[in-house]
């Protein structure tokens, strides 16, 4: 019956790149051979609608089964039945051109599945997509049909959510919201106006001088002394993010103030209302699924797309991050496999619109085959006890027992942890540490982020585990009963068919774990292959140039050491001690100056060489190199430089150190760009540098000039550096490498997937506490 009724029909679908949409397209193509599909796709920035269909829908493993059935014919079969329509549900008239409007006018069924499903969408975005989207689809279809004089029957099926019922307790019937008791009478037009106006207000607020100052401080804290262009860029990004966050907060606030848990349910509910106003002009059916999860059977057990609501929670739990999740043990968690929802929609399409006005079908399990929260938790816990995931050391992670705490308690616990970690992160971030210890700080930051995420889940999804509403599915079951036995097998959408234990243990959890790409075996070094791949790219003969910073990248030393060593080289013993003491006293203020502006810091040191004899310094520098620098060098760094040269790469050193100190390093590099001191008429140094010290963004431009001069491509170049002040240089090249990065840079490197090296001084040498010059 279903197949016959839909055979030869054309079906217009929105949201086909989504989780449900993909399953629906596959289900129709596979089970209803005679139908043609028009898919509304928003063209991407670089790809057309038809490219997106290929890339985002047909390439998905959802279509493996169809590919197998059709073999070589797959492409041609698809091409003859699937037609891309370029457009967008957030634009009036869906942004359709004339020929596409004709397709829309001529189709028999319209399935509107496009939605902004994220529970934390910005308010105005949710309004545009979820509230206005369905009405726009209806209006465009009505208009097109009258424009082209089409009179044959049409049927608009809009996918909503069972949670439009809001925070209601008890039975939730399959009725328009306005027909249910306790419904709030909201004027949707004014909600739209308000949401649109709010963005302008928030934008204005983000430009307030005090708010801008906040962004400036935050950018400086995160990046350090990286120079103006990068700081400005970061500030603007922070502002955009702030606007986004404000709009998300506004969405949640507005939704909860009128009885919905979040902006998603709130806009979906108003969207139904706005759509149903059009029921006279176009026959409408609304399908309301509950929480859609992995496929039970079709196209294959466990098929899932994207990382959805329950998955991150489950994985956080398995990782030991989320020790508790609020919920009532005896409460019902309403989950429905995606293949049941897709089958139900197809059946609704075949059935056609209701005779007496709009019909509503809820696709939910709670009333017919309830899954108790305690049962779900129990299955998850025992499954992960049997199949633990492993941490990076190859140790299995033990999942905690669940005590079903209230939401408030979990929230306050997580909140406290987050605040503690934040304080710890801040305190340690002020210490001058790097390398392995810097990674410790990055780990704290990661942990805090994980806790913050967990807190986010609890805030966002907590209500879904505490929902007391039971969704009635009488209409759905009537529809199911109307099918013949064969169809009941093919379109199995009766929730009673779900065997929860096997669904959770054998289908859903294995699929979630696979999609989360977590470690399921106790082998160590999972990231090694990535590191090796990165290294192979860096050490490929195709690269052009390898540029190195000096301090803490090649040598664990700095301008202070150098100066102290050279200044004490020719002093008697007692004076050496006094000098060291004096310099140590200056330590904190020097450190502060270095943090503030590297250039000023260097200049203050250059001044100390005033009156020095160039020949003496040159001679002493040679000794300094052998007695001090080489011992504090990283042998792996020297080896890497030599490796680059042997691969035919040009090697360049850019540093604020002085030329005479670098003299012994000359043979290691093709070129050295460094600071030089001015020599006075008396033949002595003047304590002034000849040019601006090559630091911060100056390095990036020096590097760019150098590359241009030697016809080298920066995109084919590698830069090695250790601190955020080198960020402009690192960003300028195709292959940045962070060496013993300080915490801020370590965090950035981890986020961007930059290659990181931990290079150490040679082992076995006596530690050097004070850089006091003496002959070897």
């Amino acid at each position: 019956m279903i197949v016959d009724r839909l055979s030869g029909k054309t079906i217009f679908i929105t949201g086909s790149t989504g989780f449900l949409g993909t399953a629906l397209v596959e289900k129709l193509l596979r089970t209803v051979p005679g139908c043609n599909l028009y898919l509304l796709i928003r063209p991407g920035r670089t790809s057309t609608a038809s490219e997106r269909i290929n890339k985002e829908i047909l390439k998905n493993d959802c279509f493996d089964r169809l590919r197998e059935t059709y073999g070589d014919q797959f492409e041609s079969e698809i091409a003859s039945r699937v037609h891309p329509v370029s457009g967008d549900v957030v634009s009036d008239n869906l942004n359709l051109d004339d020929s596409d409007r004709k397709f829309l006018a001529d189709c028999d069924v319209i399935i509107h599945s496009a939605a902004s499903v994220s529970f934390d969408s910005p308010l105005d975005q949710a309004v545009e997509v979820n509230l206005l989207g369905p009405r726009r689809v209806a209006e465009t279809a009505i208009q097109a049909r009258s424009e082209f004089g089409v009179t044959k029957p049409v049927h608009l099926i809009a996918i909503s959510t069972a949670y439009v019922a809001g925070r209601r307790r008890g039975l939730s019937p399959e009725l328009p919201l306005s027909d249910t008791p306790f419904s709030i009478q909201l004027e949707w037009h004014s909600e739209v106006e308000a949401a649109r106006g709010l963005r302008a207000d928030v934008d204005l607020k983000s430009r307030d001088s005090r708010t801008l100052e906040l962004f400036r401080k935050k950018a400086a804290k995160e990046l350090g002394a990286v120079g103006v262009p990068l700081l400005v860029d970061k500030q603007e990004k922070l502002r955009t993010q702030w606007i986004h966050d404000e709009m998300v907060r506004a969405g949640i606030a507005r939704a909860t103030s009128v009885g919905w848990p979040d902006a998603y349910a709130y806009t979906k509910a108003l969207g139904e209302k706005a759509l149903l106003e059009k029921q006279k002009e176009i026959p409408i059916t609304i399908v309301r699924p509950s929480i859609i999860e992995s496929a039970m059977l079709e196209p294959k057990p466990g098929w899932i797309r994207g990382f959805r609501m329950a998955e991150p929670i489950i994985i956080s739990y398995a990782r030991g991050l989320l020790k508790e999740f609020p919920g009532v043990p005896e409460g019902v968690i309403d989950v429905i496999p995606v293949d049941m929802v897709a089958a139900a929609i197809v059946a609704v399409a075949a059935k056609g619109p209701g005779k007496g006005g709009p019909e509503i079908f809820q696709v939910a399990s709670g009333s017919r085959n309830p899954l108790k929260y305690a049962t779900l938790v129990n299955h998850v816990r025992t499954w992960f006890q049997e199949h633990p995931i492993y941490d990076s050391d190859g140790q299995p992670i033990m999942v905690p027992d669940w005590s079903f705490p209230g939401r408030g308690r979990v929230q306050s616990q997580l909140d406290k942890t987050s605040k503690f970690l934040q304080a710890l992160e801040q305190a340690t971030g002020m210490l001058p540490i790097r390398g392995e210890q810097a990674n410790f700080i990055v780990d704290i930051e990661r942990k805090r982020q994980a806790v913050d995420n967990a807190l986010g889940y609890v805030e966002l999804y907590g209500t879904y585990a505490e929902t007391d509403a039971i969704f009635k599915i009488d209409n759905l079951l009537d529809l199911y009963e109307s099918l013949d036995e064969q169809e009941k097998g093919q379109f199995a959408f009766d929730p009673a068919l779900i065997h929860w234990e096997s669904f959770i243990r054998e289908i859903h959890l294995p699929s979630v774990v696979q999609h989360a790409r977590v470690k399921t075996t106790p082998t160590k070094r999972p990231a090694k292959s990535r590191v090796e791949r990165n290294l192979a790219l860096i050490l490929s003969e195709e690269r052009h140039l390898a540029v190195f910073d000096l301090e803490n990248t090649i040598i664990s030393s700095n301008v202070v050491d150098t100066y102290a060593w050279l200044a004490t080289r020719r002093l008697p013993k007692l004076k050496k001690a006094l000098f060291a003491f004096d310099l140590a006293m200056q330590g904190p203020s020097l450190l502060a100056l270095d943090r503030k502006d590297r250039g000023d810091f260097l200049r203050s040191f250059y001044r100390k060489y005033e009156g020095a004899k160039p020949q003496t310094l040159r001679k002493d520098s040679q000794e300094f190199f052998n007695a001090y620098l080489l011992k504090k060098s990283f042998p792996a760094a020297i080896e890497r430089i030599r490796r680059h040269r042997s691969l035919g790469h040009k090697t360049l050193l850019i540093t604020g150190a002085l030329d005479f100190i670098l003299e012994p390093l000359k043979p290691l590099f093709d070129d050295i760009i460094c600071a030089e001191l001015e020599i006075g008429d008396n033949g002595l140094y003047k304590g002034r540098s000849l040019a601006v010290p090559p630091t911060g963004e100056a390095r990036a431009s020096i590097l760019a000039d150098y590359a241009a001069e030697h016809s080298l491509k920066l995109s084919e170049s590698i830069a090695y550096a250790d601190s955020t002040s080198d960020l402009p240089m690192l960003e300028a090249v195709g292959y940045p490498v962070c060496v013993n990065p300080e915490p801020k840079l370590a965090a950035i490197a981890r986020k961007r997937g930059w290659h990181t090296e931990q290079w150490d001084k040679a082992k076995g040498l006596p530690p050097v506490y004070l850089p006091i010059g003496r002959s070897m």
Partner: protein
Amino acid sequence: MSPRPGFILDVDKSTPPALFWHGEGFRLEKLPMGSRVIYPPEALDPLKDPLGAIAHALENPVGDSSPLSSLLFADMRLTIAFDDLSLPLPSMQPPDIRQLVIEQILDLAAAKGVDDVVLVAALALHRRMTESELRHILGDRIYDSFNKMGRLTQHDAEDRSNLIHLGLTDKGEDVEINKRAATSDLLVYVNVNLVSMDGGHKSVATGLASYKSLRHHHNVKTMVHSKSFMDRHNSQLHSSNWRMGRLIKEAGVKIFQVETTLNTNTFPDSFGFLQKREWEWNLKDRTGFIAASAALGKTPPWLSRKILHSIRSPYQLTGVTAGEVEAVHDITIENVFKQQLVEVHGQTDILTMGLPYIGPYNVNSIMNPILVYCLGLGYFFNMYKGMPLVRKGGVLILSHPTRREFDPTIHPSYIDFFDNVLADTTDPLEIESKYESAFATDPWYIHLYRTGHAYHGVHPFYMWYWGAHALDHLGAVIILGGDPKTVHRLGFMSASTMSDALEMAQSFIGPDPSLTHLHSPPLLMADVK
């Protein structure tokens, strides 16, 4: 009482555990019953009047040579070459014997009105010495006067402007040496003959040569056929040096060789237990041992190293001979053997030895894994005359912590060698053909050798070749107490206890093996019959 000769102890129930050097510390190991322990002869009595002996030697040369004073004249070019800090080990308490000899030579030269005198340290491809090291060898007076005038030099095997090619030997070997030395009216060479390998024609032909010249005998083929290189008449290394030495003489280079020998009074009183046989330890030796091992065990390796490297040996002069190279060297070798030779009957299945913190190439530095290999398989294994102490296919057990530690100032190319060459292969022939020339000509290593205090880039290769004969001869090498990863990189096995090591050894050579322990310090040379 005259010093006792070397001695071979058969281990029985009452034998106390034997002392093993273990890098910067010691181990006491109970050896299986029936094992042999070879003890060196006691230190010979020194010459009563060393200064007088030196003066006497300079004026009464051996072989075809006139007294030194008759070879000196005003307006001449005089060059005095001397052995570097790799000899003796550890460095001797001041004054160093070279200082005493050179001071007398300079006095004679001054008396004859010789102005053009240059001192040159015969480094070959060794590292340049530091100021304090040169001061130690020469004394402050010589250092200050010569250094200021630029007349104190260290041989630079890469300084093309100061090398001269003297020709090819009948075997086609290039002879290229220090130009100043070769073109002087007289070259006086002052040596310290710690072991029988040193001295003779090797002093000039190796000590003042370039890589081009050295590669003819510093290679795998020569080393595999030097059985051993401590026994000059069975050493191809020496045959080659002797050919070169004769060519140098034919080319008209006039050499006046001064060779000195020392007794084996190696450690000062506080470390007296090192010089004695264990069962003869008295209370002072026991407390000394306990104090030293406890102190060294508690301190980090760098500190133990610093303490041990500051030890100066109370070596005493046992002989000084001057004159024509070959005649001088024959007497010297006799002196060395008199001090070091111990007669041993029959080879052994397992040879054990403890390796100390110091070898010729890590004075004031770290004994890195490659030097551990070289000291064990190059030096100690080759301390034999006749045939090796251990039978063909036998097992060598070395005791040393063998940490992955390198001195980046002194051994830069060693790091590269360990990380890249040994990761690929440990076969000397393959290493030689695949990697040697790249390291030898590497500009960065040449730069560090010439301007810093680094061994030449090719030096770790020579260390590896030094052990080629042993590698060829042995069935297995086990490093007792060695860092497993590092030892594995060397191509060996590590064992944490002696009984583990013996068990592992038996899997190569079968049950009930014979075992011989080479007791050191001090040094000894086995005359295996």
